[in-house]
């Protein structure tokens, strides 16, 4: 579904991502787990086309999209602070991607209503983001990313700004929704609990390098390095 082949990216003297190769299967949810500054968000931004790698190749759905602009990718992204458009209502936010695709108004409204109800957001379509709770904003951001029927969903710390109860509830909803739509997704997080609870496979990153890619169970049984074991809080 998504393939990174030898991807590297530097910002000035700082190497954010070093020769990363990863492969995401259709319908898979992969967590990229690591401490802040490990390069996980840069990797996500490269997948979305928000940053261009210095070297390496990015393939989405078999096509080389290494240098394609974000609007040419059909990829849905949920930003860390949701990046909802504050001057638009929740419904207008969700319809934005359809509008850009010149979907006629009645169909736009129908699809937006459908996805809003799927995300548990009936009746808040006319509200502006400022009038929504953190959890609701999160759901609007998710609905906005999903309504364009992307081939790939990118989630940047989607649960980081939620309180504990919202967080546990969203974890479940996120997983259910992703399974139900059968969409491949990458979730970037620094929280091992989120990664272990949500992901089919976890890629642990440290200092721009992927240290290990495994299922949650395998990761806990056989951490590949002292860093992985330490970050997961496992005794050696």
């Amino acid at each position, binding site marked *: 579904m998504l393939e990174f082949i030898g991807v590297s990216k530097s910002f000035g003297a700082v190497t954010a991502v070093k020769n990363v190769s990863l492969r995401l299967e259709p319908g898979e949810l992969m967590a990229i787990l690591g401490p802040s500054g490990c390069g996980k968000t840069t990797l996500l931004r490269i997948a979305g086309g928000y940053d261009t790698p210095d070297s390496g190749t990015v393939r989405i759905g078999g096509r080389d999209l290494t240098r394609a602009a974000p609007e040419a990718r059909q990829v849905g992204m949920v*930003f860390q602070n949701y990046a909802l458009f504050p001057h638009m209502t929740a419904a207008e936010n969700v319809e934005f991607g359809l509008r850009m695709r010149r979907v006629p108004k009645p169909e736009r409204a129908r699809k937006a209503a459908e996805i809003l109800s799927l995300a548990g957001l009936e009746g808040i379509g006319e509200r502006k983001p400022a009038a929504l709770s953190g959890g609701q904003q999160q759901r609007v951001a998710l609905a906005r990313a999903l309504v364009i029927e992307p081939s790939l969903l990118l989630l940047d710390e989607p649960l980081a700004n939620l309180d504990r109860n919202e967080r546990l509830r969203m974890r479940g909803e996120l997983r259910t929704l992703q399974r139900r739509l059968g969409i491949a997704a990458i979730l970037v997080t620094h929280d091992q609990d989120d990664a272990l609870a949500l992901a089919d496979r976890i890629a642990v990153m440290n200092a721009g390098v992927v240290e290990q890619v495994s299922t949650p169970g395998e990761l806990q049984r056989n951490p590949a390095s002292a860093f992985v074991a330490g970050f997961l809080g496992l005794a050696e």
Partner: protein
Amino acid sequence: MNRWPLLLVPSALLWLAGVLAPLGFVLRLSLSSSGNRAGEGRYDTLFYEPGTWSFASFVEIFTNPYYRGLFAFTAALAGVVTVLTLIFGYVLAYAIYRAPMPRKIVLILLIALPKFTNILVFVFGVKMIFGASGPGPVIAGEVLMLVPYAALTIAAALEAVPYPLIEAARGLGASAAMAFWRVTLPLSLPGVLAAAILTLLWSASAFLGPYLLGEPAQYTVAVEVDRQVHQDLDWALAAALNVVLLGVLSVAAYGLSVWRRRLA
């Protein structure tokens, strides 16, 4: 105890003595009869008749086609200058918005730099580049004077637009131009309107630019006020011109700020 209102006293006094009192005087003056204006240098020349009440100056302004033309020209000039200033100011503000950090500061300093130039030196520069006099140099001079203020006002509004919003728009299928049109521009509109108010007020009461760079055909209401005060010596008419200009500008500024508040 917090005694912050005390800190308002100096500016309040200054404002009372420097703005409100003269304004009251101008208002009273505009409602006086014109003096005899028998001739310059005559010992009994009166600039206005103290103690009289008269609407004659206002009647003159609203009925004499010369003054209606003067106001129409002033409004047209202010309109053209405001639109051009907002366009140039926005482009400059956007450059500041997108510039990386140390260069952002350099840009802001460069924008402020022309303000250190003496106004006459500046005017002669404009004359050399845009022509000695006429509508071209008047418009160019006004726009050049006002762009820094507009750019800094709009830049402040743009800085409040988080860049991830633009990225989100791109990710949802918007081209760079579309993301600007649908997200950046609407979110920076309050700043644009603030700049519009500033520019409009300034350019509608423009005096130096039209006077130093224009021919009589480009003289504005402000220039006419100066002429009435210093040459025709009809202070009542000069004051009435001022009051009408003030009234029109207050209504325009109020309208723009209501629009702005509805956006914010």
